[in-house]
């Protein structure tokens, strides 16, 4: 897989896929998409980058260990259920706020935070597996 074309294209492809994964993540509340599929797309992006340029640049690029990203995702997913404690409703009840930013009515919710958590869990765990497999291949 070490062709010039692939190595040149891969960084752009990775950037595009990460961007697309965030788009899929955010549209997920009302349309097909969401944290899980978004996380998978992002993990594939990193895997492509790893195949083209080696594992070390990927690890450098994401800065944190993939397992830590996973843990972070689980952390914010779990925390997204806690605002319910203050409003005397059950765990994981959705809370919405609608701030108006530049005249646009923006819908933000704890559901979205939960989904972002899922995104990180999937991204972290799949990347962790993919990088481990790619590292073996280089031995």
């Amino acid at each position, binding site marked *: 897989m070490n062709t010039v074309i692939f190595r040149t294209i891969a960084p752009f492809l990775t950037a595009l896929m990460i961007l697309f994964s965030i788009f899929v993540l955010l549209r997920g509340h009302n349309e097909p998409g969401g944290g899980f599929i978004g996380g998978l797309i992002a993990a594939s992006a990193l895997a492509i980058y790893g195949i083209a340029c080696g594992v070390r640049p990927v690890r450098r690029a994401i800065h944190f260990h993939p397992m830590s990203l996973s843990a972070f995702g689980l952390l914010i997913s779990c925390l997204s259920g806690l605002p319910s*404690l203050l409003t005397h409703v*059950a765990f994981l009840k959705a809370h919405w706020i609608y701030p108006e930013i530049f005249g646009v009515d923006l819908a933000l919710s704890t559901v979205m935070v939960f989904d972002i958590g899922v995104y990180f869990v999937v991204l972290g765990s799949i990347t962790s597996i993919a990088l481990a497999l790619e590292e073996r291949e280089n031995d």
Partner: protein
Amino acid sequence: MAVSEHTADVSHAMITTPVATADWLVVSPIIITILGGVICLMMRKQTKIQPRIAIATLGLLMLSNFGLLARVMDKGVITMVMGQWLPPYGIAFTVDATGAMLALIASIVAFATALYGVGDSDAASRRYGFYPFLMLLMTGVSGTFLTGDIFNLYVWFEVLLISSFGLLILGSDKAQLDGAVKYGILNLIATTLFLIATGYLYGLVGTLNMADIPRSVAALPNHAPITTVAMLYLLAFAMKAAAFPVNFWLPASYHTPRIAVAGVFAGLLTKVGIYALMRTMVMLLPVHHALLAHVLAVVAVATMISGALGAMAQSDLRRALGYLVISSIGSMLAGIAVSTALSLTGTILYAIHSIIVMTGLYFVTGMAGRMSGTFALRELGGLYGKSPLLALAFIILAMSFSGLPPTSGFWAKVLLVDASLKSDWPWLAGSILVAGFLTTIALARIGLYAFWRGGPEGTPDGTAFAYAENADMTAPDVTAAYTGMWLALGLLVGLSLFIGLAPDGLVAIAKTGAAGLVDPSGYIGSVFGGTGGHP
């Protein structure tokens, strides 16, 4: 404009009454363990700080579960439906006395394991996630005991299964991988059967809520194949609980991981299977339980006798303990087979006792192995000389396991034998006593070889020898590694003695739990009472 546009009438889909803050105790075990687990996971490299986080987290979990049990005993069954959705569509966490009590004991054992792990886990196993996996294992175990939705129960089984895989292969040596493969495959088959059974059940009754299932099953036409579902559940959970014909995975894997891990596994994982059997066979499908009662009784007898005989035949301490786990499962199955309020009280009490004592016995074994450098019975000996305190702990735990007074095992066995006799199952009662006798022999054999005799095989007998030859080993070890282990062991031994001397409170809780299993009206009322019933 924004307000009116975004508010809708949700009263037909959601619970509108506020949730008391104290009811959050129902989900707090999950939240506490997940938060503790992920924080530990993010601090994977700081192997010194991890035990502190884990001990603090599991201590908090213990307090939270204690509060939960107090509230359940005070107010009856508590339900919280995730996200306020109306049951049976929302996923309900429904906690009765059985679930709350088992969750509390599980958290105490996990706390003891975290203490024991301070000395038992090295930096490498901590980096590979001993503490994070321990806490996520507790997420799964707590979830199993607290959930009120059968598919959700499956999900928690998966959570604890995945964490247990991680714990099992912490050292990644060959024997561990070999054990993990057997453990993994058989447990995956069991959870798959569980999932298939749940699929069938959902197809038949159209609901997964455990409060909704009993009445939906009662309303089914006679020809509905619900007995198949009952059989599948029985098989799946019998595999989980390591009941006789499907228990090969347990002796094949429990001697491979480090002792802290084996201890918490022996304490908790098989009891999770017993708990699931009680929920499904007794509470959800009582009519079909009656059909399978004799099967259960035969399995129970075979399990307890084969386990005790297996323990007698082993020459490795850890393997012998694996068979003792199986033997104790047989006694609990006997209570489920009889399935009266009294016998289930016995099973719940036995489960509590067994969780404490099995983990304690593994801890004793671990310390004995650490002091002697081996787990082989032939090479062990003279431990009484090296550490009389450890010998005392072993004797108390062995008496407790064999069901001798004044320990926790005595009351559990009394209740089980009494219940079997009252329900006209004399041979079941006899088997429990015979199995108790056999386990006494097995444990006495271990005590004799490992603790009482002067030295390992090949050395002249007599305690004087051990003292004179190894003067440095006679001094009890008080290194930092042992402090946590002694604390953990002391906690478990003390608890077993405490239950043995003052069983009343616990028996009352177990009775409440058993009554709730036999007659789930309180359970159902807790889920549907406030909302006016099934839509």
